[in-house]
């Protein structure tokens, strides 16, 4: 069965420290990969996406993610965290099944990021 796992429910980092949020997936083929961020009371905002090509993807707000096929992972990183990065982060996977256009996203359960002074 297809699945997306975010192993860390909560992560706490100090402001200015580096961050890595983990995401592992189980899919039959190379999926499309996304990271979204959700602040309290806000909708989901796309941080970055991977469809193919260069496995290191740059996103907004200084985030990047690396697709590692051998590890079935798509971890999100940021070199220096800001207090405003505190939010819920969701990894999502989609798979285009062929001629059909559009596809459902399968989300992980999310990682809640707390940033301390």
């Amino acid at each position: 069965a297809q699945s997306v796992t975010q192993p860390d429910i909560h992560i706490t980092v100090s402001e200015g420290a580096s961050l890595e949020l983990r995401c592992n997936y189980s899919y039959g083929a190379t999926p499309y990969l996304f990271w979204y961020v959700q602040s309290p009371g806000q909708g989901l905002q796309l941080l970055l996406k991977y469809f193919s090509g260069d496995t290191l993807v740059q996103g907004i707000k200084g985030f990047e993610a690396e697709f590692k096929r051998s590890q079935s992972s798509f971890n999100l990183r940021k070199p220096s965290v800001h207090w405003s990065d505190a939010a819920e982060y969701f990894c999502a996977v989609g798979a285009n099944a062929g001629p059909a256009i559009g596809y459902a996203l399968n989300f992980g359960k999310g990682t809640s990021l707390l940033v301390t002074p």
Partner: protein
Amino acid sequence: GAGVSQTPSNKVTEKGKYVELRCDPISGHTALYWYRQSLGQGPEFLIYFQGTGAADDSGLPNDRFFAVRPEGSVSTLKIQRTERGDSAVYLCASSSPRLGGRDTQYFGPGTRLTVL
């Protein structure tokens, strides 16, 4: 331009009542998606429209849930005989897909449904 909008932002209803949730996609987006996010969980796919037709409704939990998109733009998610377990944030997303995928889904702010 305007993003995806959803109305109402909050809906409180009583068990057994009927509710309708509305989604206005980004102008020109042909694909529209509904997801449900329960407390502490990631969004869960419900249904996807391409144009006016439901291309994939495999995520609808049961026949109390129904969605329409009669003119290929605005969509309404309808829930009959609501149950307390239906309480969640209902998210709508839209995209402009192309053959082979590679489109991005843009999400609205959601409708928080509370069933008492």
